[in-house]
Every structure is written in C-alpha cells, then in structure tokens.
C-alpha cells in the first residue's frame, strides 16, 4: 500500500479530483496548507509598509492506494494539476504499514 501526497495549486483541486475519480480512486483527504518552493512569495503593501508573504496557500491531497496503482495515480495528478508555471507543486509517495477501516474493522487493502 502506498500513500500519495500531492501539493497542488488550490484552483486545480476540482480537476485533480475528477481525474482521480475517473481512474477509480474511491476517496481522498484534502487540507489547506501553506508553503514555499521555487515560486517564492509576493509582497503586500499596507499604507507604505511592505510585507513579504513567503508562504503561499496550497492544497495538500492524500490518497491511500494499493501499490500497483501508484503510477496511474501519479499520472492522473500530474496531468490534471499541471499549468506549466512554477508553483504547480510536487508529489511524494510513501509506504503504508497498516490500514484499518474503523466501521468494519477490515484491514490493509480491504480497508482502502
């Protein structure tokens, strides 16, 4: 089992969700996060006081899937979240040791 974590631009969330639904991903978790990468930030000016806003708002998606589907999920996210501009985000993949569905007590791939 793998956990795919993708950091994407907020306005790309719906497209990414549609792309993942189309390849049969049954669920995902979304959080509003802030961070910076190559996009850096921007400056805001309030009555002459300039502030560098270095952390930009992003969306973090977490998808737990069977290991054999990782490539298709990565492909779906990459194609749907891409704008070609800096700040499109990143995808990280890690292994999951155990999974449990709370309602039924099913475990591992049955729980995904």
């Amino acid at each position, binding site marked *: 089992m793998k956990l795919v974590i993708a950091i994407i631009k907020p306005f790309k969330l719906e497209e990414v969700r549609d792309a993942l639904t189309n390849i049969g991903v049954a669920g995902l978790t979304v959080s509003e996060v802030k961070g910076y990468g190559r996009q850096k930030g921007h400056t*805001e*000016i*309030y*009555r*002459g*006081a300039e*502030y*560098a*806003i270095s952390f930009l708002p992003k969306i973090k998606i977490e998808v737990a899937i069977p290991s054999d589907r990782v490539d298709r999920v990565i492909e779906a996210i990459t194609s749907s979240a891409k704008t070609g501009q800096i700040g499109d985000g990143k995808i990280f993949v890690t292994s999951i040791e155990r999974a449990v569905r709370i309602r039924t007590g099913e475990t591992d791939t049955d729980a995904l």
Partner: protein
Amino acid sequence: MARKPDMTRPRQPGTSFKGLKMTTPLLRHRIASALLTSVATVLAAPAFAQAPAAPKIDAGDTAWMIAATALVLLMTIPGLALFYAGMVRKRNVLNTMAMSLVCVMIVSLLWAALGYTLAFTGEGPILGTLDRLLLRGMGMEAVNAAAKTIPESLFMLYQMTFAIITVALVSGAIVDRMRFSAFLMFAIAWLFLVYVPLAHWVWGGGFLMTFGLLDFAGGTVVHINAGIAGLVAALVVGKRRGYGAENLAPYDLSMAVIGTGLLWVGWFGFNGGSALGAGSRATMAIVATHLAACTGALLWMLMEWHTRGKPSVLGMISGAIAGLGTITPASGFVLPWHAVIIGGLAGVVCFWACTSLKQRLAYDDSLDVFGVHGVGGTLGTILTGVFAAGAVSMSADLPGGSPGLLDGNPGQLWIQIVGAAVTVGWSGLLTFVILKVVGLMVPLRVSDEDERVGLDIRQHGESIHA
C-alpha cells in the same frame, strides 16, 4: 459654472445663475461670491424673523438632531470598531473593538455627570461651570445658549457622541500592545484634562471661540486633538513587537471597508448636525462632507496607484477618512467646490504623511491616527481660514458670516493657525503627562508574551476563532 435652475421648486428672485458670462477666474469668484451672498441672504431670512423671539424648541430641528446624534454614535459603534478591528492582526481584533466599546460606556457616563457642564455651560475663558453637574436643572424646557431650538438634553447627548469618538479615535495609535486597564485610566483622565477644556475653548464660549477660531465640527477639538494624542501615545507606549520586521498586515480589510461606510454616512450627522438645526447650513455641510470624502479617497487611490503600482482598498478607505476628517472644520463654512479641493489635498497630504513621513520619523502609530486625523485636521483647520465663505455662515447674529482669506479676510488664516497650534500644544503636552502618570500606576504595555499570544486571549480571555 453653468447651473441649471431647479424648475421643480419656486425660485427666489436674485438666485439665478443664468446668463452669467465667465471672464477671469478672479472675476468669476467675485461674481459667484456676490450671487451666493444674495442666495444666503434669502435663505437666512427666516432666521432674522426668529431671532428676537424667546427661544422655542423646534420640532424639525429636534428631529434632525436626534437622527444626527444616532448617526454620530453609529460612527463609534460599530463604525470605528469595525474600521480599526479590520486593520489589526487576528489575535487583537476583539481587544481593538473593546476599546471603542468601553469609550462609549465610560465617556457617556462621565460626560453626563461632569464633562458636559464643564464644557458647555457658562462662558469662562478656560472652563465652564458646574451648573449642570449630574445634569441637575436640565428640565423639559431647558435649552443651551448654543442651540436654542432643540432640548438641552439633546444638545448634551449630541456633544457626548463627539467626546466618545474622539477618545476612541486615540486608541488606534496604541492597539496591539496597550494594556486595557491602562487605556481605561488614560481615557478617563484624557476626557477631562484634554477633551473637555478644548471643547469649551473652541465651542463652549472659551478663549479660542472669542478669539474667532472657526471649527465647524471638530478639526481642532476632535481630529488634531486625537491625532496628536495618538502620536504622543504611540511614542510613549512604544512600537509594537516586530514592527518593521514581522508581518503586521491587517486581518480583514473587508471589515474596515464596512466600518468606513458607517463612518462616512455617520459623518453626515457629525458635520451636518453641527449646524445644530435642520436647515440649509446643515445640508451645505453635508454636501461638502460627501464631496471631500470622494476626492480624498480618489486622490489617495491615484497617488498609491502612481507610486506603488496598485490602487489598494486600504488606500481608498484611508483617503475617504482623510477627506472626511479634513473637511470637518471647514464644512458649514465653505462652498461645495472648496470641499472638492480640500478633500483632494487631504488625499495627497495624508497619503504622504502615512507613508513617507511616518517611515522617516519611525514612530509606530498602529492605525495612523496621526497621519490621517492629526495631519488632516491641521490641514483642514488651516484651509478653513483660506476658503471660508461668509455667505455660507451668515446668520442673524453674524450678518457678514465668517469669511476667510479668499473672501477678503486674510486675518482669519492667522487665527486658524494659532488655534491649531494651541490644540497641538495642549493635547501633546497633557497626553504625555497623563500617560506618564498612568504608567506609574500600571504598566502601559502588556507583557512581551501576551503581545505575542494576542491581547484577545490574554486581556479578555476570548478569541474570534475565525
């Protein structure tokens, strides 16, 4: 200056602008003044008829002044509370609102008990009398000599709302760091030692009034006063932690926009109500007020667009308040086109004060009480001496009105400058002394840790959880 006569209303003879040929600007001004003088004479005629009779409470005046009183109270709660709270950080939103709220409670009670009588009874050069201590003797028929056509209880209440907002305005300079209890003590002392004497000097028959200072609705008493007090308080209390290094950006400017709208509309009662009656002087003051707010906002926006590349919403609302504060002393003395110029100058000068001057002098006046109200109030008080047109302010008691420099009375400019200087001196000195004395009793600032965590949770045990 081609004006269309309003055909829906019967026109008074001699008020037509039709057929007026413009030649030189000077002549144009002379002609316009002469015509307006005749207009004002006609408009003022009913006042002539009334003056010798015994004071009689007028239903129209009373109705307007009740509304105006409500409008001015609305400027503080929720107007100023929203305007200020929208510009602080999220952790200090409630504390900022609390300062406006507490000014309403404390100043109202103290004004009724002692402030009003010291400011507005008797004609001593320095202070009034104790005739209305705890409002004693304020019966159903009572009127104040300054406003003989409305009940004295209403006059007292109207002036109360001015005292409230002036004290509340000062809080903008020290939000984000001043201890709530210290602010309370400061507010009480400042009301009696700074606001009450100034209100008496300028409006209650004191020495600045007899000196001839023109301040229709509070350029000196409210705006210079609050602005200078804010500057001194910002210097004495000290800068916010992280000023110039950390991000102190406003939490929610949309709240500040709503607050600005309430202040703007409330200002119709502030300046229009300062006519103390329902008449053409009130409406002329409102016209001036609104136009000045518009040009103030517009010019600030354009200045910012030009120098910083973007027209910010904070700039627009700051310019509107600058225009409103600056026209305040002049409204009721000037013509609409004067107000357009005064508002525009306010937008430019206050923009410069809040950006360049503030950075050069390196004081941390959190919400620019000095840059907007202090600078705008000073500018407006001086410009009143330039633009005042006798035609707008003539009355039975003052047939020539109160003319300024452009209307042939250059001496007025000097009176205005002296009036502004006295206000700056008194407000600055006494604010400093009061804060030093309060500082001996309780620390003026919250602890560093409280400031970091936020005044909402540390001073009030609450947070907005938004």
